[in-house]
């Protein structure tokens, strides 16, 4: 659809701006979502001290600072040719588990939860965290706050600061754990594990036992049959902090498994003229447009992408929940976009169990937390951000300054899939030029499931994510505008 050109000046205004184009019959021909992409990072980082990258990159995004911090730290391990000590790796992974605990808790109860707990048909004024509290009660509300704070506390104890950590260094970390801290983290992690189990039960009671919700989850507008991607350990179990990048196909069979060093052999980025965002796809399969299926290189990352790309969870309780998810939703892979919410809770449980495993590890209090670095060179780092696979790649000069930096961020990995999900949701709701009520809701649910992170770290009053849907007729004339928070 060459003729759809959106003025580059306006493309970044209004986060979550969506354009829907109708055909001659008034049905949906296409839909596009514009994600504001911040530019110029490579130039910005050029000539800076490589050791500063974990701090600098954690400022790229107000949502996933911990993920950027460790993707950068791991890229520096590699660039300085140093293997972190075993204790350092465990401390990093423990801190990372804390990040997943608070981030996933926030998403389920505050952001995704309103769609289900309160209900997709509830009035907009109720579809927020306060509506959730009204439904589940103040006592549970307090538990939500408490456990989100525990996740942050775990991160803060290890990282120095809850939101913008300062602990990652090439070859290790800057700070170890003492016995009191171990005790405190263990108590919090246990409580988080129980709360994660409770949350899965809540999801069961409110969502899975409600036929109407299950029908929506399994309904056609919310299905997408793409490839799936995520980090896995040596047993092909989900891992957030380390491992190989695994991609599975539409039959849940392994398509490729590669080390992050080979990312450019496996992932390419497609450019569309209406968006600054580049759309990643599987290079060997190729870009076939915004279509799913075996012949299209589009893949999904994030909670459901990770679960689909793995053979299970590495901890017992989460693995049980993993199996239950697939049994309930008809086997692997699950293509239901709204199942991202459920997958997120399985991961929440895993994060708490993994935190407990790590904190009980006798090595966790060792003072061997850093190895000496080698000569500067080129380095790759990969982690799973809550929202999906995140890659940092740096080239250092001989003085240890950044010569080149490239990042592939999680939300961007899902950009192609999100566009399709929006189009599918719109197709179900616009027929013959008639726009059904609830379009905004259903479209929002389609991309909300991915937990996208738009304007990385942009904070400006007044806020609350604005959403604008513009519908154009087949002559590309504006036909209707729907707005929220604008």
């Amino acid at each position, binding site marked *: 659809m060459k003729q759809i050109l959106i003025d580059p000046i306006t493309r*970044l*205004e209004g*986060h*979550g701006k969506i354009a829907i184009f109708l055909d001659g019959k008034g049905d949906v021909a296409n839909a596009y979502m514009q994600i*504001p*992409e*911040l*530019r*110029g*990072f490579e*130039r*910005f980082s050029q000539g800076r001290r490589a050791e500063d990258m974990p701090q*600098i990159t954690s*400022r*790229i995004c*107000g*949502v996933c*600072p911990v993920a950027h911090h460790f993707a950068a730290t791991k890229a520096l391990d590699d660039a300085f040719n140093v293997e972190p000590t075993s204790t350092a790796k465990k401390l990093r992974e423990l801190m990372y588990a804390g990040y997943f605990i608070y*981030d996933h808790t*926030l*998403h389920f109860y*505050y*952001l995704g939860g309103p769609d289900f707990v309160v209900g997709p048909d509830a009035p907009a004024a109720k579809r*927020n*965290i*306060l509506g959730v*509290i009204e439904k589940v009660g*103040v006592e549970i*509300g*307090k538990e939500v*706050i408490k456990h*989100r*704070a525990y996740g*942050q506390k775990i991160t803060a104890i290890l990282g120095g600061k*809850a*939101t*913008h950590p300062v602990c990652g260094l090439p070859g290790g970390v800057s700070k170890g754990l003492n016995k009191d801290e171990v005790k405190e983290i263990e108590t919090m992690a246990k409580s988080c594990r129980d709360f994660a189990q409770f949350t899965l039960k809540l999801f069961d009671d409110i969502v899975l036992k409600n036929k109407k919700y299950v029908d929506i989850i399994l309904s056609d507008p919310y299905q997408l049959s793409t490839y799936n991607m995520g980090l896995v350990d040596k047993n092909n179990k989900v891992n957030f902090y380390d491992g190989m990048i695994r991609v599975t196909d539409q039959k849940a069979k392994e398509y490729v498994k590669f080390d992050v060093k080979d990312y450019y052999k496996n992932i390419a980025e497609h450019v569309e003229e209406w968006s*600054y965002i580049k759309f990643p796809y599987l290079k060997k399969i190729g870009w076939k447009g915004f279509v799913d299926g075996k012949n299209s290189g589009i893949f999904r990352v994030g909670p459901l992408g990770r679960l689909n790309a793995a053979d299970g969870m590495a901890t017992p309780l989460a693995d049980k929940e993993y199996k239950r998810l697939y049994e309930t939703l008809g086997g692997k892979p699950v293509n239901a976009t709204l199942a991202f919410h459920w997958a997120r809770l399985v991961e929440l449980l895993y994060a708490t169990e993994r935190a407990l495993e790590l904190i009980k590890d006798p090595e966790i209090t060792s003072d061997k937390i850093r190895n000496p670095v080698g000569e500067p060179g080129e380095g790759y780092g990969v982690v799973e951000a809550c929202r999906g696979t995140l890659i940092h790649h740096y080239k250092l000069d001989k003085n240890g300054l950044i010569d080149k930096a490239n990042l592939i961020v999680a939300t961007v990995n899902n950009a192609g899939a999100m566009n399709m999900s929006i189009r599918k949701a719109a197709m179900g709701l616009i027929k013959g030029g008639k726009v059904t009520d609830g379009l905004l809701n259903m479209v929002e649910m389609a991309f*909300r499931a991915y*937990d*996208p*992170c*738009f*304007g*990385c*770290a*942009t*904070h*400006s*009053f*007044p*806020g*609350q*994510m604005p959403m604008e849907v513009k519908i154009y007729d087949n002559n590309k004339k504006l036909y209707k505008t729907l707005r929220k*928070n604008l």
Partner: protein
Amino acid sequence: MKTIVLGVGNPILQDDGVGIHVANQLKQHVNHPNVTIDEALTGGMNLLDLITGYDKAILIDAVNIRNEKDGEVKRFLLSDFSSAHSDNSHDVSLLEAIELAKTLGEKKIPCDIVIIGIVLKKMPNEFGEKLSPKIAAAVPKAVEMTINEIKNYVNFSS
């Protein structure tokens, strides 16, 4: 009166970081045991965590207000906004966070939350640490207004 002053924004996103520039300058003028000056690269829930426990909070941030020009400095009360902060899809607004905390019985939310807003019509989309001339010119006024705001609550000589 325990007061917290937070420069809010992203220091590597050009004009978006104006609040942090103001906070850094304030540190040179204000030194009082009851006044904490810090920066916040975050919104919503995390911002609430940072201001909880103080009697008064002053947030310095870029604001996007219709019919105002870039670089104007305005004082607002949090209640002037229908929704505030956290312009991203993975957080709730500060107002929502506060309402939630109150519903759950939190008693330590500052009774006064003032915003010193520097009008910025268009969010930068390119990384950088420098402010544009118009926004940089607004910094002294924002510093002055914030000092006056603090003086309403705390006596100090700058």
